[in-house]
């Protein structure tokens, strides 16, 4: 197949796949509540003992207080991922907290919460 046919075919095909996915409504972020966050965290960290869970106002992330530190459950597209937080850098803006970690695969996660109250809860 000559490149003049192959390349446009691939481009058009990929655009059609992306548009179909969007049209199907599969572009929404996952949301989570406190019990959902506990359950999801337990899948990846069954040994963790969760004392308390705080959920972001938009439901897209939750912070977990563990016996040995903090954990995070957050939306990645329509799925969730988890992290045990080690040396996180926490910054604030008007919309909430940014949790930044040295993990290259998870640069930063936003929590839509009252930054003053939550900074206090984090002891930061």
């Amino acid at each position, binding site marked *: *197949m000559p490149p003049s046919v*192959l390349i446009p*075919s*691939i481009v058009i*095909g*990929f655009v*059609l*796949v*992306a548009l*179909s*996915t*969007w049209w*199907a409504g*599969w*572009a929404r972020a996952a949301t989570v509540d406190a019990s959902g966050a506990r359950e999801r965290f337990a*899948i*990846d960290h*069954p*040994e963790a003992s969760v004392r308390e869970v705080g959920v972001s106002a938009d439901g897209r992330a939750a912070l977990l207080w563990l016996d040995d530190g903090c954990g995070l459950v*957050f939306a*990645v*597209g*329509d*799925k969730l*991922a*988890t*992290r045990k937080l080690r040396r996180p850098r926490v910054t604030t803006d008007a919309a909430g907290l940014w949790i930044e970690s040295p*993990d*290259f*695969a*998870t*640069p930063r*996660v936003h929590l839509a919460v009252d930054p003053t109250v939550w900074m206090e809860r984090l002891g930061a």
Partner: protein
Amino acid sequence: MPDLPDIVQLAIPVYLAAMLAEIAIGRLRGTATYELRDTLTSLLMAVLFLAVSLGLAFFGIGVLRAIQQRWGLVDWGWSVPAFALCFVLDDLRKYWLHRVQHRCRWFWAAHVTHHSSQHYNFSTALRNPPTLLLTQIFVFRIPLALLGFPWEMIAFVAGLNSVYQFFTHTELVGRLPAPIELVLTTPSHHRVHHATNPRYLDANYAPVFIVWDRLFGTFVEESPEDPVRYGLVKNLGTFDPVRVTVHEWVAMIRDVLQPALTPAQRLGYLFGPPGWSHDGSRETTEMLRERFRNAARRG
């Protein structure tokens, strides 16, 4: 020499039709089989992989041709049995390459991209790592050239193998009849391979003939009691294609450059199994399975 078609190129319209059909069926069933950013990431990876592969293929072809012409043991000709033997041996080669990709971090650093989606659909099959050729995996084809198979035949059967693998990346197909499940790699087998559930880790490597896994002790059956969760043990928190592509390379380089390591420890971070660490602070597959077993015992 027969005029061999480029099977992968010919399959591209079929790939596109299969993805559109999978989306339509998912929509009809009311199950979200795709996610927009995840799909875009996979498709972008496919384009980058294609571009890099085309750019570097000439080098690999040159090496294989030179080896086959100088040292090739047998002149196989172009008969159907020669193609069939080459296909089977290529699949065996891919089984071992794939196993190495999961058990040696240098190779895993590239292959991890293919496993990084939490979805499992035909677009996942196209999520190939643009950095794959950095790991020089074409050297795994050298034994076939040494056996005397011409590079055109090797490329042809490898193309057939890739096309077959594409169709194992779906949740739409359940278990197939037992004789097929016994011999061939099916969607069920490959779902297990993409799973993060501890009992499914590092299993079912075979691209076409699942008999290799049965033979070499890496076969695990899909169980309805333990529904498959896809992705990585530590799932990515981003769709950024650059981070998806290079995150493990970055982590590996950071590990290797830690101060106060012995040369053996630095090599361990490069070529040891994923999760290996010099101080035992991280988990390999075996350690992870042990942790989950212990947690299950504690209930």
